């Protein structure tokens, strides 16, 4: 029997009933009395232009229009919609050089879809009709779609704060010579017996979460601004909005609604500034602002695309001597977290293998596309695509088995993880590799596919990955939790951790119930109202179960300690002799000495004094547990993915036949939710590898901002998937758990690319690996 009551059980999700009945309330579902509708007028004609003239007079006269808002009618403070500034210290912020380069409404259009002005009307349709009457004259500017173009001397500057349109490079103060890594790479390469290098391209993938962005905002009669939002980061957004609009935080409220998918797209502010600016323009009236799918595509962040060069040196026995890498990403029109992915892409690279030396440089360049931000994996899939193909090229050249090479050379317990100095506290990657290889039939298939003829070729490939559980030490990790015990020994857990579909509220409730020793049904998660909850960073960096769960566990341990202290007095025992299970407090070695937990919580609240004796029974005071939790460590998960593909060498088409995803997650608090993360991650990872890229024409206008033209794998495209959950409890994670949110996406990228390499004997250097690129690769192989 499991040592746990709740942990490890796939219980129905907290929110599932509301979601299958359609009663879950997403932001666009909110209806308030007197509600108005906002519309942002965007530049659809140009990707780079200056606004020469803006005339709102005709729009203002349209029926139903309440207000028109030009750039001077709203705050003109520059801002940065990302939240990195909140998560690093001031000196670190200065060193990184993160800048504020966004304006609510701009006169310098930097990407198609940039915001020009706003309309507030009595209906969405009235706002849209008025938007058509806005007159804008533009002066077109040269369009830069790659770093090579925007960094040319004489190019139009995106912001005076970043000369040369170099948004970011690893800062000298922290990374001498702008390099992250260890050892002397040049000296190490001199020792190498074989060296490989190549240049790769990675795509501008879009989160394409199913719910477009939606908000309601209201400036009420107390002078308080409330924003209902589909954000992933309610507390950070509250802080950012309060700064942007110069409102004390006590007058800025954020209500997180049910969120229809995030995947990083809703990190920081998205269109909250526009919604709030509109609400401030019509005091008292709620304003709803929703984005169309096309707006979502062009005015909310994407993954960072770019050029990724890598060189690796080995001894002939496979010893990895040195790795040199350079990733120049195309940042899009605005800075956001320009420093983030440029660094982490190298961090995941450094966290994987025991190279003798590593030299990584990362740079971000402004370009005239939708700005980049966070997308599940945050640089890791880019690295996986490149690093894992380079490893397999070396294995092929040196005659080594890719599984055995990885088992020999991956980092493990005690090695530096994603940041130098943050060592791995647990690692079960060998078990992932062994079980995954067995599940896919690695040896037999590799042998069989070595001697294929015909036009359809099969291949099997492997890739491994490391990730993080939270963003420490680069960024702040902190979650506040309060747990309040009711009179009847049920509990309310108050915290701001985001449920973005990943199931966090369900798993955090399990952590609470297990710690308190009460049934999971008796725990209510009171989340989403910034008035009631303390600080939390939000759902990013796969942190919610690891850090949020740590906070819940600490708060519940605090409450539990108080229960046990009181129970010890009642039972004439010591607190450490007691345990709680199913709402009974009992002496561990003598379970018949027990009392219902309810007796303690009841008497804590209803602590009557006997008027005749002046005495009370039991201990007074409603029990509350509290934690302001800064995790002591960052315990990264590992994963090994195996993919089998069939490549049609006549058409270039790739069909993924099977995917085995083996992950070291520490402990599965809720196995079905873990599986769901891996399976959903795989769909996005396969998309990165095979089909997904936001495309622009030479003028920077988007060619595929719709589900028809942007190809994601559908139900018929998805392969058979096998999940292997390797449980190797981590010493720091709550109940041994490590993260899983982003992990599932990463290694399917490299595994698929390597399976294609195995099938056709040539690597495709640009993701997504489209049929055209497969055919080009085959042609170049024949030409050699």
């Amino acid at each position, binding site marked *: 029997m499991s040592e746990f009551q709740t942990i490890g059980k796939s219980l129905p999700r907290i929110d599932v009933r509301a979601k299958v009945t359609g009663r879950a309330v997403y932001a666009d579902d909110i209806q308030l009395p007197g509600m108005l509708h906002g519309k942002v007028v965007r530049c659809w004609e140009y990707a780079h232009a200056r606004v020469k003239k803006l005339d709102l007079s005709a729009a203002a006269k349209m029926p139903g229009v309440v207000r028109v808002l030009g750039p001077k009618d709203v705050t003109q403070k520059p801002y940065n919609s990302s939240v990195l500034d909140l998560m690093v210290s001031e000196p670190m912020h200065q060193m990184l050089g993160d800048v504020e380069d966004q304006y609510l409404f701009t006169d310098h259009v930097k990407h198609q879809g940039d915001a020009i002005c706003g309309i507030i009307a009595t209906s969405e349709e009235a706002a849209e009709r008025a938007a058509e009457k806005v007159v804008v004259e533009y002066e077109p500017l040269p369009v830069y779609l790659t770093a090579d173009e925007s960094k040319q001397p004489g190019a139009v500057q995106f912001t005076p704060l970043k000369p040369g349109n170099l948004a970011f490079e690893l800062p000298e103060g922290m990374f001498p010579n702008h390099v992250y890594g260890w050892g002397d790479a040049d000296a190490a390469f001199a020792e190498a017996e074989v060296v490989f290098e190549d240049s790769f391209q990675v795509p501008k993938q879009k989160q394409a979460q199913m719910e477009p962005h939606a908000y309601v905002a209201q400036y009420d009669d107390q002078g308080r601004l409330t924003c209902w939002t589909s954000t992933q980061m309610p507390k950070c957004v509250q802080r950012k909005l309060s700064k942007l609009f110069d409102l004390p935080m006590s007058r800025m409220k954020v209500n997180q609604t049910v969120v229809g998918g995030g995947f990083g797209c809703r990190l920081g502010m998205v269109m909250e500034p526009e919604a709030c600016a509109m609400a401030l323009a019509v005091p008292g009236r709620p304003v709803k602002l929703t984005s169309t799918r096309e707006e979502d595509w062009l005015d909310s962040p994407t993954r960072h695309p770019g050029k990724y060069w890598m060189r690796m040196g080995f001894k002939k026995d496979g010893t990895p001597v040195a790795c040199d890498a350079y990733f120049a990403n195309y940042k899009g029109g605005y800075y956001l977290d320009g420093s983030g992915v440029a660094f982490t892409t190298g961090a995941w690279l450094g966290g994987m293998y025991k190279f003798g030396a590593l030299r990584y440089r990362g740079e971000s360049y402004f370009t005239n596309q939708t700005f980049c931000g966070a997308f599940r994996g945050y640089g890791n899939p880019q690295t996986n695509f490149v690093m894992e193909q380079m490893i397999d090229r070396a294995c092929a050249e040196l005659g080594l088995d890719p599984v055995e090479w990885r088992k020999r050379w991956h980092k493990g317990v005690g090695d530096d993880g994603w940041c130098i100095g943050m060592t791995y506290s647990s690692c079960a990657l060998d078990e992932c590799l062994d079980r995954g290889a067995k599940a896919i039939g690695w040896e037999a298939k590799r042998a069989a596919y070595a001697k294929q003829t015909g036009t359809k070729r099969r291949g099997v490939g492997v890739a491994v990955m490391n990730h993080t559980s939270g963003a420490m030490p680069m960024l702040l990790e902190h979650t506040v939790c309060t747990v309040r015990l009711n009179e009847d020994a049920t509990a309310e857990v108050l915290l701001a951790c985001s449920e973005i579909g990943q199931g966090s509220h369900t798993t955090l409730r399990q952590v609470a119930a297990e710690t308190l020793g009460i049934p999971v049904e008796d725990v209510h998660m009171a989340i989403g109202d910034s008035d009631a909850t303390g600080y939390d960073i939000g759902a990013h960096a796969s942190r919610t179960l690891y850090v949020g769960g740590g906070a819940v566990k600490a708060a519940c341990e605090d409450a539990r300690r108080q229960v046990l202290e009181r129970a010890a007095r009642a039972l004439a025992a010591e607190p450490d002799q007691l345990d709680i299970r199913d709402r009974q407090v009992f002496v561990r070695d003598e379970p018949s000495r027990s009392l219902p937990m309810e007796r303690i919580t009841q008497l804590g609240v209803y602590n009557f004094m006997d008027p005749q004796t002046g005495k009370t029974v039991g201990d007074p005071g409603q029990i509350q547990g509290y934690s302001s939790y800064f995790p002591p460590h960052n315990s990264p998960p590992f994963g090994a993915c195996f993919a089998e593909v069939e490549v049609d060498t006549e058409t270039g088409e790739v069909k993924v036949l099977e995917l085995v995803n083996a992950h070291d997650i520490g402990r599965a608090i809720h196995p079905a939710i873990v599986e769901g993360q891996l399976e959903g991650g795989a769909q996005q990872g396969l998309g990165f590898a095979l089909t997904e890229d936001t495309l622009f024409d030479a003028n920077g206008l988007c060619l595929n901002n719709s*589900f028809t033209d942007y190809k994601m794998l559908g139900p018929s495209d998805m392969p058979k998937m096998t999940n292997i959950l390797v449980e190797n409890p981590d010493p720091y994670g709550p109940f041994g758990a490590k993260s899983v949110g982003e992990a599932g996406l990463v290694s399917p990228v490299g595994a698929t690319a390597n399976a294609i390499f195995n099938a056709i004997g040539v690597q495709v250097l640009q993701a997504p690996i489209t049929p055209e690129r497969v055919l080009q690769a085959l042609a170049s192989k024949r030409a050699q």
Partner: protein
Amino acid sequence: MKERNITLSVNGRVHHLTVPVNKTLLEVLREDLHMPDTKYGCGTGECGACTVLVEGSRAINSCLMLAATMDGREITTVAGLDQGGELHPVQQAFMDQAAVQCGYCTPGMVLKTISMLAKNAQPSEAEIRHELEGNICRCTGYAKIVAAVQQASGQLEAPTLRQAV
């Protein structure tokens, strides 16, 4: 804009409405009838989030259907499926199989499944996947949604509590 008087039955309740001829069924459901259970995902019939049933079993994208053309029709949305606290077997299957994450595609998925099973009570896995092509889910990778359809069609048992493997 021209208007038209229509009678629309939604989840068994009859509504007499005057609708502009350019208004979609999705807009009428959400804005006029204040029934937000049917979702906007793309507005162009690509994602299936706005799926509703016509005459109990035919799935359509309500974002592509003008309300004025639906006069006299009987519409079922996901909110009309559960009766007296009892979930519809398809809803129950989505719950049992952990086929719901963010939930935004779920109303459309549930209704599409009902429509699929009305045509073919025992679809093969390939048929299920083919039928679901018009409904996009970005969270699940479809594996557990396929399992939910299999459970709803009696081809798969409802799972008991699972332990980690």
